[in-house]
């Protein structure tokens, strides 16, 4: 094996700055070997080290009575009582999915599933938050088709239901789509496992698939800006093998029923390197590994390649000494590779040998704790104020409000997402009680009365205009969505998708969004227990809209009190919670964007304290069984929420007529589509009204009775009226129509 000479230039090609390279030489007291350089480059990459984000991530509330595991592990864990807990995390797979949509999205699912079952949890649900470029961009159709079938291909095969998500289209994603995937698993308190390599002398075990030259530099790729060349790069994209992952899942859960293991971690980004160094770092130990013992798929692999390979479906295990054969037996039963490749040492050094030589010898702390941390300069973009300016009076009034209403319901952002989620098995494991199509999915937890509600949300137009407010609103909307199903928000995972953090404007967006999210989380008293940062979502210098997607986990103590978003029953009363919030708030609204082609204005006011009371009210009303339905008002405001409550009903569309809660003086189109936050459209049987109003008063929520469910039309009195079936047709065909996919 001839070693490549390590030069500052080579370090630069590995994405290391001159300072970082000097720091490495100082730590090592010599020039690093090429393998060591590779190890530093991936461990110090943005993706693994969070070097630009750490200082700000600290601002999230991460503690709380329910928190069993906060950030820093493979997934966060929240107590749900009765000795049960949920482990969950969200991950991005943006760049790979743009290069190869099917495999990129598929391996994204595979990765996040491993993060959850490595903690000992059985995954029971997936969510996917997707953002594509302009719907008429030449590449969009191809990307949508590939990403959706990739998620379906992996999730369906391994048998974890995909129960919810989002799909948005915006030109800021033309060259950088976002594929964020969330997984939640259930685990008993006494079955939680962590990624630690404790116990000097314990064996370090490699299990799963063999190692090939897959995605070498994937981790650094995820931390680099795009240029045209990326599309020609040698396959940095890996192929997923959901079948092997299914075997790995069952084998790991079977192993975890024994007490043979000390720690376990999946080999994700930076594969063997990150898993081994992170596990040793958590335990304050070291390790000695012999790469000749690593199961290999390709010939003549170098230590550099073996340490950096991102081959999928692999795990690193530290077992109790003497229990190796027990572990081996389980993995052989499941037809998986198994190899003891080293042992835990006490000297805090990671030693890697191959061919009888030491190829890397690095202090664990040097690559983990001592990784660079940057507090990068942040500055408000000059253009920011200009974007906020908007003269409402100059907006032309639409000639025909019923047509505008249908157009809004049929636009890709609003339209039925059934074409997407119908490709996902959202029922498998028979826990999904509220299927995709409502504000939040609800799953039962077998063996208990409890239910879990899930929603993922982010309005990136709000975040572009005001990242602080946008960050707050992302948390508020996701909390509102789970509360509309009757659940209490108990935990957050997030995926922070931004541009190049070396640019002060981007850093300002990032910092502001986090501070907004943190503020809202505090109001709801929900901890952020896991998440992921994806920087460098830029093409040719143009960044995406700041997109901090928020996945909210909600808990129902009694799943039989769950709610759906659609009207159920002729004659039920329709009420609006938060009705006092009735000043025009059109900044960044769907209406402005869709009908007037503008993304400008001040986004709606965020009032986390009000939203927290609103969620408390919804939960109380649900548990007292006072409600027939609850639907939050989001994109498209009151008119679209009303129409959705009518047309999303699985049993077929139903009519409804309501009064206009806005002051006379306000223009009809504004009243229909104004996006004031903190509002929820409710329906209840007439005999429950008194109790409902009393409950609202307890939580100081202003309610207004607007009308009743029934008839064949969706109507806002004195403004517009559309036949319910006609409205449903507009909504149901919107997405497939725009993408040119058959129904």
């Amino acid at each position, binding site marked *: 094996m001839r070693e490549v000479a390590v030069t500052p230039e080579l370090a630069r090609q590995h994405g290391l700055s001159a300072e970082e390279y000097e720091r490495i030489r100082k730590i090592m007291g010599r020039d690093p070997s090429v393998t060591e350089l590779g190890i530093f480059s991936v461990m110090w990459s943005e993706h693994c080290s969070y070097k630009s984000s750490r200082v700000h991530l600290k601002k999230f509330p991460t503690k709380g009575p329910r928190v069993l595991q906060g950030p820093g592990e493979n997934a966060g864990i929240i107590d749900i009582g009765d000795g049960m807990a949920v482990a969950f995390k969200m991950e991005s797979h943006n760049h790979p999915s743009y290069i190869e949509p099917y495999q990129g999205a598929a391996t994204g699912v595979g990765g996040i599933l491993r993060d959850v079952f490595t903690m000992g949890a059985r995954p029971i649900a997936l969510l996917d938050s997707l953002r594509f470029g302009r719907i008429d961009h030449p590449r969009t159709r191809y990307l949508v088709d590939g990403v959706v079938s990739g998620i379906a291909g992996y999730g369906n*095969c391994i048998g974890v239901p995909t129960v919810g998500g989002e799909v948005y289209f915006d030109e800021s994603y033309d060259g950088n789509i976002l594929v964020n995937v969330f997984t939640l698993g259930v685990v008993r308190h006494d079955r939680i496992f962590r990624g630690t390599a404790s116990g000097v002398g314990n064996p370090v075990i490699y299990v799963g698939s063999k190692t090939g030259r897959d995605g070498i530099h994937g981790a650094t790729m995820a931390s680099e800006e795009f240029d045209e060349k990326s599309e020609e790069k040698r396959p940095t994209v890996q192929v997923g093998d959901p079948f092997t992952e299914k075997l790995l899942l069952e084998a790991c859960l079977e192993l975890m029923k024994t007490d043979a293991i000390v720690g376990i971690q999946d080999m994700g980004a930076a594969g063997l390197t990150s898993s081994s160094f992170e596990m040793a770092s958590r335990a304050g130990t070291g390790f000695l590994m012999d790469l000749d013992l690593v199961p290999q798929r390709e010939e003549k692999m170098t230590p550099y390649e073996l340490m950096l390979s991102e081959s999928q479906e692999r795990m690193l295990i530290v077992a109790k000494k003497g229990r190796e054969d027990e572990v081996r037996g389980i993995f052989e039963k499941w*037809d998986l590779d198994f190899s003891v490749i080293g042992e835990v040492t006490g000297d805090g050094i990671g030693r890697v040998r191959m061919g009888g030589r030491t190829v890397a010898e690095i202090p664990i702390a040097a690559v983990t704790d001592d990784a660079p941390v940057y507090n990068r300069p942040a500055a408000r973009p000059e253009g920011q104020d200009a974007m906020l300016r908007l003269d409402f009076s100059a907006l032309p009034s639409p000639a025909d409000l019923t047509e505008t209403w249908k157009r809004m319901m049929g636009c890709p952002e609003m339209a039925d997402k059934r074409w997407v989620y119908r490709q996902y*098995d959202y029922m498998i494991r028979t826990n999904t009680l509220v299927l995709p199509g409502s504000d939040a999915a609800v799953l039962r937890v077998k063996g208990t009365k409890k239910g879990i509600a899930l929603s993922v949300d982010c309005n990136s137009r709000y975040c572009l205009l005001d990242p602080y407010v946008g960050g707050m609103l992302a948390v508020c909307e996701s909390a509102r969505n789970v509360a509309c199903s009757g659940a209490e928000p108990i935990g957050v995972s997030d995926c922070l998708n931004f541009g190049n953090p070396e640019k002060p404007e981007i850093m300002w967006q990032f910092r502001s969004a986090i501070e907004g999210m943190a503020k809202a989380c505090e109001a709801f008293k929900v901890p952020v227990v896991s998440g992921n940062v994806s920087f460098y979502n830029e093409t040719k210098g143009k960044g995406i809209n700041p997109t901090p997607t928020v996945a909210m986990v909600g808990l129902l103590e009694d799943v039989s009190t769950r709610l759906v978003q659609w009207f159920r029953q002729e004659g039920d009363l329709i009420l609006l919670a938060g009705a006092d919030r009735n000043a025009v708030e059109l900044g960044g609204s769907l209406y402005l964007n869709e009908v007037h082609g503008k993304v400008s204005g001040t986004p709606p006011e965020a009032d986390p304290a009000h939203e927290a009371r609103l969620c408390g009210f919804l939960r109380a009303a649900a548990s007292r069984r006072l409600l027939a339905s609850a639907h939050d008002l989001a994109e498209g405001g009151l008119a679209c929420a009303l129409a959705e409550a009518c047309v999303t009903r699985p049993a077929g569309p139903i009519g409804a007529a309501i009064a206009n809660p806005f002051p006379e003086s306000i223009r009809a189109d504004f009243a229909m589509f104004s996006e004031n936050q903190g509002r929820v459209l409710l329906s209840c049987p007439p005999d429950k009204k008194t109790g409902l109003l009393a409950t609202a008063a307890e939580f100081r929520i202003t309610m207004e009775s607007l009308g009743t469910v029934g008839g064949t039309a969706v109507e806002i009195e004195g403004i517009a009226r559309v036949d319910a079936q006609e409205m449903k047709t507009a909504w149901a065909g919107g997405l497939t129509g725009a993408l040119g996919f058959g129904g």
Partner: protein
Amino acid sequence: MKIAVLVFPGSNCDHDAYHALRHVLGLDACFVWHKEDRLTGYDAVVIPGGFTYGDYLRTGAMAKLSPVMGAVRRFADGGGPVIGICNGFQILLESGLLPGAMIANESLKFICDYVYLKNESSTVPFTHGIPSASILKIPIAHYQGNYYADRETLSALEGNGQVVFRYCDEAGNVSPDANPNGSVGNIAGICNAGGNVLGMMPHPERCSEEEMGSADGRRIFTSMVRWLEEKGR
């Protein structure tokens, strides 16, 4: 009553079938690993859905080679009731226990949705006592549910009344519009000549409890139980 739920590498509806049989119907359901080569002591066999061997090569192709399938064949030859659901149906086709084959859905998309089935034969163990022409609401979730058989095989199936379920609409019309995947003759489930081996693409185990949105799937399992009881007497 002892029911075997087969588990192959990649089976993933095994727990759902087990849950429906044991916790909903209170039957003595047991998992049976695919390397077992005997099924003695069982009253019925369920081959659950999933992606055995990742559905690589062809769906059901590698699973048919597992030792347990020899035992299933003997169990079926002895007249024992066998139901293959989704991937289980595909395995029965690949192993020749049922005629025909599955190809990709016309839409070339995985489809997860509720569909309606018309029950066309109330004599086989699994529809025993379900009046024929009853309409069942049961979900499908598959990429390869487009049933194919050559002309002779088809007319034989139709002639012997081996077509057990057809896709229909809510009102019971068996029409092209009600056909989710392009299956010839809207076929959703067939049985062997003896009637004791049923293959169906829809998932009865997913709708055996009211709160799942339909409990019609339970009717198929209870029919099987009733049939076994009557046979026992």
